[in-house]
């Protein structure tokens, strides 16, 4: 029938439209240009004006319950209204990459360096103003000044205090390959902080050693989780004896952390197991001269902002002279691994390695 043929072509037409839409290359995604040209302008430039009429759009990979009050504090102090999109950090990074230059966001608040590195690698961040970036030790921010670190998170081993004493728990990650821990270790291979840790291992000890460690761990039949929070739950319930997580999950549990069945063992200083991961913030290209975005980052790096992180989210402040969270050792004692954190941006290679050994 004629009409049915017409209908078939109409459908094919819509599909073709869809393919064409996907097929056409987006300049934003192909370009990997670093914001090098703007570097010269920003040394000694004037602080941009805030605009109370304009709403600041923030993409936050950090949880609403944790940073919501801080953002409200920012609005109270500066009068700038904030529109926050809360979602998972990797999903937001993926979304920012898909959106490219059409993104409505001004600022990306990220839970880990890997996501920031991904967005930076696609050339989507603007150059972070010099006076903001220098508030934080250079090793905690990106080398190309596209994003700045805000707080630190220590890699730790959560252990079941009912069946293990603190001394029995390994401080060195290589001890985890011992067969006595078979089936007793919990890891989250799909999680960004585990992948950062593996990247640190690769950078510190070399590709072959990293692969060897991974293979030995796989031989020890670890339990694979999707999230660190689930690992902590499992250690607390007795489902697993050791878990490789970040310190703050424990510190900010709903119950008093000292009463939990799961307790923390911090890694041996100087080893990848003692890695300090960072949360950070980046300003997107379109908000380069945006005063509101500038004020936002300034607030997060201010004493008020940093103190909030210490008291409410139990993370280590990266701006000097603020203090440290309760119930955990100070940052100076930890002596995190001797690695240039900016090198942790190279997540792609780590993901390839994890895929190769079969963890992903």
């Amino acid at each position, binding site marked *: 029938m004629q009409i049915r043929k017409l209908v078939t072509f109409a459908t094919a037409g819509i599909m073709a439209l869809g393919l064409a839409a996907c097929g056409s290359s987006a300049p934003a995604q192909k370009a990997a240009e670093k914001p090098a040209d703007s570097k010269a302008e920003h040394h000694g430039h004037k602080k941009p004006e805030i605009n109370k009429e304009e709403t600041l759009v923030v993409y936050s990979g950090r949880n609403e319950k944790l940073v919501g009050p801080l953002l409200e504090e920012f609005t109270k102090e500066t009068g700038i209204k904030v529109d926050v999109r*809360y979602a998972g950090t990797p999903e937001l990074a993926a979304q920012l990459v898909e959106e490219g230059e059409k993104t*409505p966001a001004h600022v990306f608040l990220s839970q880990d360096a890997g996501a920031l590195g991904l967005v930076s690698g696609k050339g989507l961040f603007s150059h972070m103003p010099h006076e903001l970036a220098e508030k934080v030790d250079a090793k905690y921010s990106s080398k190309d000044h596209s994003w700045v670190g805000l707080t630190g998170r220590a890699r730790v081993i959560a252990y079941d205090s009912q069946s293990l004493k603190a001394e029995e728990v390994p401080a060195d990650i290589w001890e985890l390959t011992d067969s006595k821990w078979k089936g007793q270790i919990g890891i989250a291979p799909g999680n960004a902080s585990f992948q950062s840790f593996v990247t640190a291992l690769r950078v510190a000890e070399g590709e072959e050693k990293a692969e060897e460690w991974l293979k030995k761990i796989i031989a020890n039949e670890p339990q694979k989780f999707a999230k660190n929070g689930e690992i902590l739950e499992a250690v607390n319930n007795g489902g697993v004896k050791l878990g490789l997580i970040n310190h703050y999950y424990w510190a900010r549990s709903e119950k008093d952390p000292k009463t939990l069945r799961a307790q923390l063992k911090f890694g041996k200083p100087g080893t990848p197991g003692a890695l300090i991961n960072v949360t950070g913030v980046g300003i997107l290209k379109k908000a380069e001269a945006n005063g509101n975005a500038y004020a936002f980052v300034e607030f997060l790096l201010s004493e008020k902002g940093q103190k909030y992180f210490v008291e409410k989210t139990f993370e280590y402040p990266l701006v000097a002279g603020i203090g440290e969270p309760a119930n955990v050792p100070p940052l100076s004692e930890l002596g995190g691994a001797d690695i240039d954190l900016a090198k942790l941006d190279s997540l792609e290679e780590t993901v390839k390695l994890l895929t190769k050994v079969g963890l992903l």
Partner: protein
Amino acid sequence: MQPRFTNTVVSTAHYFIASVVAGFAVLPITYLLWRAFSNGLSETINTLWRPRTFELFINTWWLILTVSTATMVLGVATAWVITNLTIPGKRLWIILVALPLAIPSFVASYAWLSAFPTVFGFWPLATVLTLCGMPFVTVPTIAAFAKADYAPAEVALTLGKSRLHVFRTLVLPQILPAASAGSLIVVLYVLSDFGAPSMMRYETLTVGVYSQLIGGAGHARAASLALLLTFSAALIIFAEQQLRRFNPQSATGAYRYQQKTARGAVGAGLVLLILLFSASVVAPLGALLKAMLGNERFATDWAKISEGAWSSLYLGIGAATIATLAGLSLAYLTARVKTWFSSLLETTTFVGNALPGVVLALAMVTLTLRLLPAIYQTTLSLLIAYVILFIPKSVGAARASFAQLPIQVEETARTLGDSKLAVWFKLSLPNALPGIAAGWLLVMTSVMKELPVTLMLRPTGTVTLATELWNASSINAYGAAAPIGVVLVALGVVPTLLLAASVKRVLPEQENLGAVERTENA
């Protein structure tokens, strides 16, 4: 009755609408194909052709085979108990049996793990997914039983055939289209689910997709794995279509069955219903409430919860209505016509349902920005995404319902002078109402608990119950999540009311019940 291979009752309008809908539903797949091969063909083959991928593939298939069988058996049994036994409180049970739909799979998994922390892996996961997915079979099957024709069954009984034989040969084939449509939805749901398998530490293809995506750089690899999911879905959809070819239609109209009153059967049926309800609704809510007792840190934000409840409600009703209306033509078309064209339309519409939410969300972000950037991150784009995502649920249930009316009835109506479309409006549509209501229910509850697409496409600042639940659970504040879970389940009652109203036929009037009892005791 042989299926028709020529078209006698389907109007061209249906072809047109169904094609447009299928065209929209296939857009995310085009995105997926583009993404999967964006790093080159050899990279794609490398990702797919390795032991780890095989492992994920086999794991996934074991899971879907087990869960689909279990839900089919339990779903049909539950539906039969509610419609064919004189259990007390039928209206209530129709509502209760649909409530597990409001519970996200990760909440059900959390409940299991907090009760049995050391028991995880395949069997617990299969149990949790069966309990979560059962309503997808039960709900359309109740609608099907409501319309089933028992006259041949009654006659066969008088001729001496056993009840079991009669059920197997005369009643079961009538409800099988609805049950298998539901089973198909369950399979697609299991394929796309991430929350439960990841918490239960059983690695399926979707878990693999998420892991690659979270690395940030593995978009192409994630998309390749998602292609495998699509392929699996297409296989199953095809199998289900083949199974459907030979389903008979009844010759006479609906005839109400005399429902059983034997106390033993009623008692056993009631026990089954109570057990299933406790395991699938009471246990998850109970686990959350138990966590609430230990919650010392996070206060409950009732303002946010009521805002979320309101959004979930209007988004759910909006998306469900649009999806149901949009899917009617496709449902009718695939019920009546069985050609390669209708098969193709159905496959393209259904196959997107197997994709993990995050893949679909990213697809929708790209597509919206390229095709209609003005509506990006508005309620409209969110509704469109929900419709594309959930239309298979309404089409499946509606299709089974349309198929229950014998085609001869419609053809007869046509010989009396009405056009195809008029017959459809006056006859087919009203008759299929229970199935359509079932589909509406399935879509609305799915929208209320949907997460990845909502997070990416919602207008900034819009809050739904699902996003609030996620907020709490992602920092392990399950105690704070408890009130949200309760409100979500309470809201889940709303869509069930429509279904309960449309299947009034199976609910006995008090007088009839009395008459049966008197006859039995005489």
